[in-house]
């Protein structure tokens, strides 16, 4: 069987995983030992670092998923190596995005309870995270139930593409919904350089973690493709079996 770089890469995960583990430990040290206690929020502000890092990466993965959908439809789903790569990357981004979304939606309320005195408010960024999470879930539901053939992949890619402008509109709708004026994330916050170090460290850690997971998921997709090819080969050899 002829194999290209996509099928042949031996183990790209190990190196990434080690880097991610190191970065995570460094980020945790930075968050808990380097960054000072925040004056008004106290220790609960430590949730902020990984929470925001997860949220940012969820958005990045969503954009990646949308771009993959666009590329997949651009190639018209023609079977080929690049189509497989783009398609696999789309699923991988969506699945890791759902995991990060779950992280954001669990850590968010814990922190909001301390910061705002309530578990959940329909605050724009919170609402936006929830909507991205729901769009990801719909994408994965399409992948799971609309069939994994070319057709199902095309539909899911269509949703990923529609999701990009949808997110833009959801963003402005929820922003204006409460009639309140939202501000930028960092306005008035994180002036302390040590806090900034902790924040960027956790940002880096989360990007390495999500990259590792995406690559791992991509490998699984590749193995699935290979397995399908083997089934086909077996079927060709002994059609009756």
């Amino acid at each position: 069987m002829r194999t290209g770089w996509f099928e042949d890469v031996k183990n790209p995960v190990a190196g990434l995983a080690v880097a991610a583990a190191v970065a995570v430990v460094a980020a945790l040290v930075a968050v808990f030992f380097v960054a000072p206690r925040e004056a008004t929020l106290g220790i609960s502000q430590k949730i902020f670092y990984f929470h925001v890092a997860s949220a940012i990466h969820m958005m990045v993965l969503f954009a990646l998923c949308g771009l993959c959908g666009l590329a997949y439809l651009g190639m018209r789903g023609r079977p080929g190596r690049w189509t497989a790569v783009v398609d696999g990357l789309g699923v991988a981004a969506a699945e890791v995005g759902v995991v990060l979304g779950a992280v954001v939606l669990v850590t968010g309320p814990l922190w909001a309870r301390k910061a705002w005195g309530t578990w959940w408010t329909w605050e724009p960024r919170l609402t936006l995270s929830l909507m991205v999470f729901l769009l990801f879930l719909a994408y994965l539901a399409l992948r799971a139930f609309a069939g994994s053939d070319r057709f199902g992949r095309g539909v899911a890619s269509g949703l990923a593409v529609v999701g990009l402008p949808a997110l833009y509109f959801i963003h402005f709708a929820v922003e204006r919904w409460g009639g309140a004026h939202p501000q930028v994330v960092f306005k008035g916050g994180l002036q302390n350089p040590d806090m900034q170090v902790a924040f960027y460290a956790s940002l880096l850690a989360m990007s390495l973690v999500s990259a590792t997971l995406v690559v791992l998921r991509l490998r699984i997709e590749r193995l699935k493709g290979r397995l399908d090819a083997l089934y086909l080969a077996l079927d060709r050899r002994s059609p009756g079996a």
Partner: protein
Amino acid sequence: MRTLGQFVAVLRKDLTIEFRSRDILYPMALFSFLLVVVFSFAFLSDPAKARDYGPGIVWVTVLFSSTVGLNRLFDRERENGCLWALLLGPVPAGAVFAAKVVGHLLFTGLMEALTLPLVLLFFDLPVVDVPAFLAAVALGTVGVSLVGTLFSAMLMNARMKEVLLPLVTYPVLVPVVIAGVKVTALAVGAPLAEEPGPWLRFLAGFDMVFGVVTLLLFERMVRT
């Protein structure tokens, strides 16, 4: 203007079939009527508060009932592979899509003309700002039809399309619901420090962008 003629031809075909069989309009209108009745029993405990949740009920009714229509929209085309036959002909995919959207828009509009007055009546909502209300319903329904028709076509052959269709369209349509509820609340005189203007422009922008995006995606999907 051949495209326009083809668009009219496809639309006329759909309308003729529909007005002879009525298998989209009847279920949709009946469903929305039942929905309003159920909502009345569920929420009408305190008439003084009706103004708070009335606008929401208007839009939930529109969304749910239009989904009933969307589920059936491409059934006729699927049964004998008609859609592919239609697209194999010298008709641009865009014309077919536009005809389908306008068809769904007309059915939903008829349903709304029957149901929304009932909502306003049952929940005692006095529409102060009639143009804003009508504009919101019109623009919002266009958005629902655009997104809904695209996914209805995409999911035409899917195994669980009745379940998957709302799962996929509702998250995308959240902005329409938010803007629609806001304008409706303003139109029935809710005390909000806002103007309906920006929300209506928001809805118009949604329709413009999704009009183009869904049209392009439909054409692309047809060729895939």
